[in-house]
């Protein structure tokens, strides 16, 4: 499986593209032709990702012996396998979703109920390239980890990135920093691909940070305008807050398992579930903080709507389809940590599910109060990410990844459609200046409607299948159902349909309220829209439930994502169960979505319902105001939290500077000056000059005194002479 082992090439190509564009683009390629490099690179990446996907499916279908996890004995309960570190159920995951009663011992492997051929547990392809660094017994390796989940995301990232590259040639044509835009698109793609195939948690963190940086750069692409830089900083700093959780969580994991290797960690947990529960709970909570910041969960979601300040293709790529799902991806990758940490198997409410559900609810609520089309889509993304996190929280792993997959396509299509609309409406995103574009922009309109229906979850579009699985997961849960999550999910389903219909009404129906003459966007923008809309239609086919395909005999194609992408090597050890498909739930979900559409249709098209409520009703007005101010969360973060910390520190720093530092400096200066003066007066003039003068005076006066000996009179000299002679004589006589 050559591509799987050498998967490092996939992120390497866009990295090389980044370097080429940035350093050689201006002189050798031409600043307005660098998109050629980017699109070429991305096409190559798409091909390699397709090859990797294909090779992975081959691996699952026809595994070589070393790819399969060997089973030694059939264990009964999950958590029962001693002695071998592989999951014990042989042929479980395919037959699992047929009549498998949730809550029962999942690990039993009596031939799998419900028949069907049993599929073995496929090991991921892990290639380690080098022991990058080793210090005091701790080894840091660099490598790739390719399994079904990786391959799924590879396809998503490659497809959407390629389409965004193509779309951007028209959208940012003539931009002041066209070259850098494409360079950083390439860098982002490389970072996301690197992140997706991270082999150990250090690489995970590196990729996480890299995509954060690229997000910052791309949001602030037009940094000359201050709101854009503010948004970029808000995004980065909010992510930073969450990154603390990421680092702490990863360190807790390392401390518990003494390894950075993801495979090792997952295996250790899945073969010994129930151990290290407290450590896993702590790690899971910390990692939830990181997910909250990166994937826009409450309460760190505030950056995502502001991130719409960046160019629309960037929003489509990063803030709809790829970067924001990094948190969801991380949870899915390290699922055993969360499964055991939050006891997803046995609880009926846990932190992750609650945060996910609550986020979904408040995101959908906020989407109603926005006039900016991109902000609506941003809140919709927040809400859908909440769905994914909630799905993971109730144990529906495949549902979450499936929803990630479908959401990427229809949300990207919606964003690119919004970009197309703004192109026609003179670069405004305010829905109040749009309207009636249905007639002038048929392609955009149709793709937008298709994607909206997919988002709302209408049969047979992609969103229906994925959302249905999430609702089913929360209904059934693992051992207990998750009733509160179900209520959240249903409410959000209704609201999603409603606000998307509102958007369609304002944007495409009615009369055009802007100025100028709108026209359809060029083909280079509409073709990607159609491709994505097409995916929004058919993406559901990747994980259809069995009963749907039975009538047409294509049962073998059911739950493809589950088969290929779900890491049963780990999840079986945990005893993850899959609920049976329920027609009732599907119909309930569909009914909710349709009713959302109908209510909104009646409200806008037929002008029925409670118009003008906010003017009449005080509570409604307050509620609307709360929504408009985004639940005052921004005010809380900026004014209350940051200011409370910032103001005393700033005041203290200023006081310290003025009173302590300045005073010290001034005092030092004054002291030096005074010392200088004193030294001058007393020592220089007084002591030194005084002593010199005194010496001179002494010499003078002693000379004067001794002068009297020189009288000039011979007799005096004679007296001295004879006197001295006499004294000498005495000395000689007496002494000697």
């Amino acid at each position: 499986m050559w591509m799987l082992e050498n998967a490092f090439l996939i992120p390497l190509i866009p990295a090389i593209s980044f370097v080429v564009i940035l350093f050689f683009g201006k002189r050798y390629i031409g600043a307005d032709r660098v998109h050629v490099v980017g699109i070429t690179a991305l096409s190559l990446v798409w091909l390699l990702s397709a090859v990797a996907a294909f090779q992975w499916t081959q691996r699952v279908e026809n595994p070589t012996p070393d790819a399969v996890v060997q089973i030694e004995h059939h264990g009964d309960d999950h958590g029962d396998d001693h002695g071998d570190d592989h999951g014990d159920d042989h042929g479980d995951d395919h037959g699992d979703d047929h009549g498998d009663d949730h809550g029962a011992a999942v690990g039993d492997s009596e031939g799998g109920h419900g028949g069907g051929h049993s599929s073995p547990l496929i090991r991921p392809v892990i290639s380690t390239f080098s022991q990058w660094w080793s210090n005091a017994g701790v080894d840091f390796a660099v490598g790739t980890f390719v399994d079904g989940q990786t391959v799924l995301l590879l396809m998503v990232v490659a497809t959407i990135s390629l389409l965004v590259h193509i779309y951007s040639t028209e959208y940012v044509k003539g931009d002041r920093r066209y070259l850098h835009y494409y360079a950083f698109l390439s860098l982002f793609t490389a970072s996301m691909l690197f992140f997706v195939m991270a082999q150990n948690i250090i690489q995970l963190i590196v990729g996480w940070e890299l995509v954060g940086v690229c997000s910052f750069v791309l949001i602030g692409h037009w940094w000359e305008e201050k709101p854009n830089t503010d948004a970029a900083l808000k995004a980065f700093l909010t992510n930073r807050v969450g990154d603390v959780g990421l680092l702490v969580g990863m360190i807790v994991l390392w401390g518990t398992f003494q390894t950075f290797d993801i495979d090792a960690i997952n295996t250790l947990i899945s073969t010994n579930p129930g151990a290290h529960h407290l450590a896993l709970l702590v790690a899971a909570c910390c990692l939830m903080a990181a997910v909250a910041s990166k994937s826009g969960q409450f309460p760190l979601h505030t950056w995502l709507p502001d991130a719409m300040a960046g160019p629309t293709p960037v929003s489509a790529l990063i803030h709809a389809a790829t970067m924001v799902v990094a948190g969801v991806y991380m949870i899915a990758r390290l699922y055993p940590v969360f499964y055991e940490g939050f006891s997803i198997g046995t609880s009926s409410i846990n932190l992750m599910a609650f945060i996910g559900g609550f986020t979904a609810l408040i995101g959908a609520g906020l989407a109603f109060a926005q006039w900016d089309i991109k902000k609506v889509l941003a809140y919709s993304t927040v809400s859908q990410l909440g769905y994914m996190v909630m799905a993971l929280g109730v144990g529906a792993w495949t549902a979450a990844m499936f929803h990630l997959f479908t959401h990427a396509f229809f949300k990207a299509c919606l964003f690119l459609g919004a970009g197309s609309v703004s192109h026609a409406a003179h670069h405004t995103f305010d829905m109040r200046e749009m309207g009636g574009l249905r007639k002038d922009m048929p392609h955009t309109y149709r793709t937008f409607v298709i994607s909206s229906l997919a988002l709302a979850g209408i049969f047979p579009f992609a969103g229906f299948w994925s959302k249905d699985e999430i609702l089913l997961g929360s209904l059934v849960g693992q051992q207990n159902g998750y009733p509160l999550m179900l209520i959240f999910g249903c409410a959000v389903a209704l609201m999603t349909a409603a606000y998307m219909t509102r958007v369609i009404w304002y944007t495409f129906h009615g009369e055009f309220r802007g100025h100028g003459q709108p026209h359809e966007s060029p083909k280079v923008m509409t073709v990607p829209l159609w491709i994505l809309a097409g995916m929004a239609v058919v993406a559901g086919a990747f994980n259809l439930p069995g009963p749907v395909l039975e009538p047409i005999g294509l049962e073998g194609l059911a739950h493809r994502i589950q088969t290929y992408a779900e890491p049963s090597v780990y999840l079986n050890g945990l005893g993850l169960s899959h609920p049976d498909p329920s027609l009732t739930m599907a119909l309930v979900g569909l009914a909710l979505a349709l009713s959302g559409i109908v209510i909104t249709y009646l409200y806008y098209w037929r002008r029925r319902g409670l118009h003008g409520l906010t003017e009449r009703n005080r509570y409604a007005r307050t509620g609307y105001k709360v929504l408009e101010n985004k639940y005052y969360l921004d005010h809380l973060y900026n004014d209350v939290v940051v200011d409370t910390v910032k103001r005393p520190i700033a005041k203290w720093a200023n006081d310290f500077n003025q009173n302590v530092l300045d005073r010290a400096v001034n005092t030092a200066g004054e002291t030096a000056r005074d010392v200088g003066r004193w030294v001058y007066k007393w020592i220089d003039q007084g002591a030194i000059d005084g002593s010199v003068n005194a010496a001179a005076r002494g010499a003078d006066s002693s000379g004067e005194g001794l002068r009297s000996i020189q009288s000039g009179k011979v007799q005096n000299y004679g007296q001295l002479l004879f006197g001295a002679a006499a004294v000498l004589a005495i000395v000689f006589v007496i002494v000697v």
Partner: protein
Amino acid sequence: MVAQNIFFGILSAIVILSALRMVTTRNIVHAALYLVAVLAGLGALYVLLTAEFVATTQVLVYIGAVMVLFLFGIMLTKAPLGNAMEMTGKQWPIAAGVAALLGGVIVYSLVNHFGSDRLVTDGPIYRTADVSDEVFSTYIVPFEAVSVLLLAALIGAIVLARKD
């Protein structure tokens, strides 16, 4: 012996007293005469010590020539005859002290060393012939040198005292 001691006593008294008087008198001519007395007394002492030629030379040269010279000098320098000028300097106490000190040291060391040595009185007596023998044999060179010295002094005195 007794006679020699008596004569010594008389002569030394004369000498000392004259010397003292010489350095204290105000009259310079008296001072010169007192010096003559000293010299004469000393000549007599030489005779006492059986040094006849020295005594003779003393009288001849010293008293006869040197003192005359002194008197000529006194005359030529118009020293006031009689008690005119104050002859003793202002610092005579210091001079007296120095002289006394010096004298005291010498006397002390003499007494210390020679104590009560007796003068040899029965030694050989040298008369003039012996003296001349000695001068012209052993001390011929100094003799000639002294003559040259005298010549130089003579010439020098003339040169110095010439009027032009």
